[in-house]
């Protein structure tokens, strides 16, 4: 109890300090001299966020880029870390796995989510059906790791199975399988967890977009005799294109950074590691910050095209406005 009171106090103090800072900013921007007031106000509103981003993202990104060219003693070693990454068999497995993740997860999560959204559109009990598939979004990757380790649990053939998947194998007369140990397919079983989590997100966003399609368009297509499939490809898909891009982008970025699932389910052993996990292992466990930084830099380069594409779309939209 004492413990909880102390923690509560920390939170209250934290919130009070924050409120005081915000209050101070508002006071300053209101009292600024008339002549430069507009400028002071703009600066006052933007400065906290921009300062935090500069110190918390821009500076670290530059710092990490530099770090990736140094060894564990902080001495400059040129491209050694990158050479390590692209020559060591273990590091190559990590890169290969990341590519598999980033291809499969956005593709499958978006398509299953889209299919589900279309299937249940205006069906009875739509809300409940949505909630069931969306629910994994609320569960932490760590929690999901426990849930799925339980699904994949393995016992020898002579014992009762406690994992559902192995029980199903046994019911069909198969040998139980070590889902998480046998490379390379164990990576696919980890990917299934990520798809399980992300599908709900895709489904909810796309469902909202589908509901936003003007009924006249659907009605017109229907009167023209378009089949359900034709309506889907010629009306639905083009109309919700914007939302589809947002969904695929968000899931792709999330997948590239995925860390918790691998960390908690296999810790990256048995050839399941991905770049984000390996980066943590190298930098914080193996004492090789240079290698960790190099892996982070590679991650950055992989996310780059996705964000550049979206930034260009954004710019176009702004110009239209």
């Amino acid at each position, binding site marked *: 109890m004492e413990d909880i009171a102390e923690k*509560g106090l*920390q*939170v209250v103090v*934290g919130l009070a300090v924050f409120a005081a800072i915000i209050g101070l900013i*508002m006071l300053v*921007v*209101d009292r600024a001299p008339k002549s430069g007031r507009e400028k002071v106000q*703009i600066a*006052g509103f*933007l400065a*906290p*966020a921009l300062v*935090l*981003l500069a*110190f*918390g993202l821009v*500076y*670290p*990104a530059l710092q*990490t880029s530099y*770090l990736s060219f140094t060894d564990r003693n902080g001495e400059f070693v040129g491209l050694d870390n990158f050479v390590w990454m692209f020559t060591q068999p273990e590091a190559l497995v990590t890169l290969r796995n990341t590519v598999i993740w980033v291809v499969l997860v956005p593709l499958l999560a978006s398509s299953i989510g889209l299919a589900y959204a279309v*299937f249940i559109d*205006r069906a009875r009990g739509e809300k409940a*059906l949505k*909630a*069931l598939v*969306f*629910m*994994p979004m*609320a*569960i*932490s990757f*760590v*929690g999901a790791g*426990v*849930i799925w*380790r339980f699904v994949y649990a393995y016992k020898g053939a002579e014992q009762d199975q*406690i994992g*559902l998947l192995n029980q199903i194998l046994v019911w069909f007369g198969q040998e139980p399988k070590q889902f998480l140990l046998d490379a390379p397919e164990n990576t696919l079983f980890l990917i299934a967890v990520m798809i399980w989590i992300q599908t709900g997100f895709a489904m909810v966003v796309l469902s*909202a*977009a589908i509901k936003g399609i003007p009924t006249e368009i659907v009605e017109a297509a229907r009167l023209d005799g378009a089949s*359900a499939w034709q309506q889907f490809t010629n009306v639905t898909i083009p109309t919700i*294109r*914007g939302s589809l891009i947002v969904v695929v982008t968000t899931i792709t*970025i999330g997948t590239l950074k995925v860390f*918790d699932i691998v*960390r*908690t389910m296999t810790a990256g052993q048995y050839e399941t590691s991905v770049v*984000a996990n390996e980066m*943590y292992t190298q930098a*914080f466990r193996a004492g090789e*910050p240079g290698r960790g*930084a190099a892996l982070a830099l590679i*991650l*950055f380069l992989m*996310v*780059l095209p996705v*964000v550049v594409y979206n*930034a260009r779309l*954004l710019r176009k939209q702004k110009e239209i406005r």
Partner: protein
Amino acid sequence: MQRRVRQRLTSRTATAAAVIIAVIWTIPTFGLLVSSFRPEDNIKGNGWWNVITDRQFTLENYADVLSPGGSQSPNLLSYFVNSLAIVIPGTIFTLVLGAMAAYMFAWGRFRGKDSLFIFVFALQIVPLQMALIPLLQLFTQVLKFGDVQLLPSGTYAQLWVAHTIFGLPLAIFLLHNFIAEIPGEVIEAARVDGAGHSTIFWRIIVPLATPALASFGIFQFLWLWNDLLVALVFSGGGADVAPITQRLAEIQGSRGGEWQRLTAGAFVSIIVPLAVFFGLQRYFVRGLLAGGLKG
């Protein structure tokens, strides 16, 4: 008319497929829930679907993971409190600072506004992983007066600031989309009446943007609650500060065979996000996607 459209679109195959997906998506969590109430020997002895014939339930697993007993105890209650203490301020800070910046990007008039906005959006590019080491160094070595750290280690402060920073690019982007859609006349009218930016922001923008603020707030809450990576780096690991996800990951790593603790522990850790989710889901996407997502 509506009804005829409905009949055409919901064919039997589609319904069947939807039901199959719903079942696959729900069974894993359901299995865990059932297991967490089974006695230890049963959990380890046979599958949770055996409850159909063997109905034994207990609350012992929950009592075990929540009790603050000896050093071997999972002691989840303490970590649960930590999670709340990390997430609530972390969410509020991100919302307030994100909304302030979003407002200026939407309605301020200054040169280079669009470029700066795109730059902030593009910061999503920077993987968390890239920022962790330098930020940790910044907190522990640079931000201090003499020997006193401005954001002391072993408190929540570092986690709040780190989470706020990592949440800001997306917060600014999404809130901007919504705030930019607020009718310009409302803001112009206030300006003509002599209102400054702070008045406009607190009296007009915040009330009108409440749906967007609420739905982003919910998402941010869920993300922070579910975070493991930031926690691992900035918490120092002890029961003083570390969140429940971190403790759960530890139990999983060190005592992977203790299914009774894992199942109950996992449920304790997902109870808050699930409650938030089911309680507030109607606010979720409506507000968040109102702006910016037009095809």
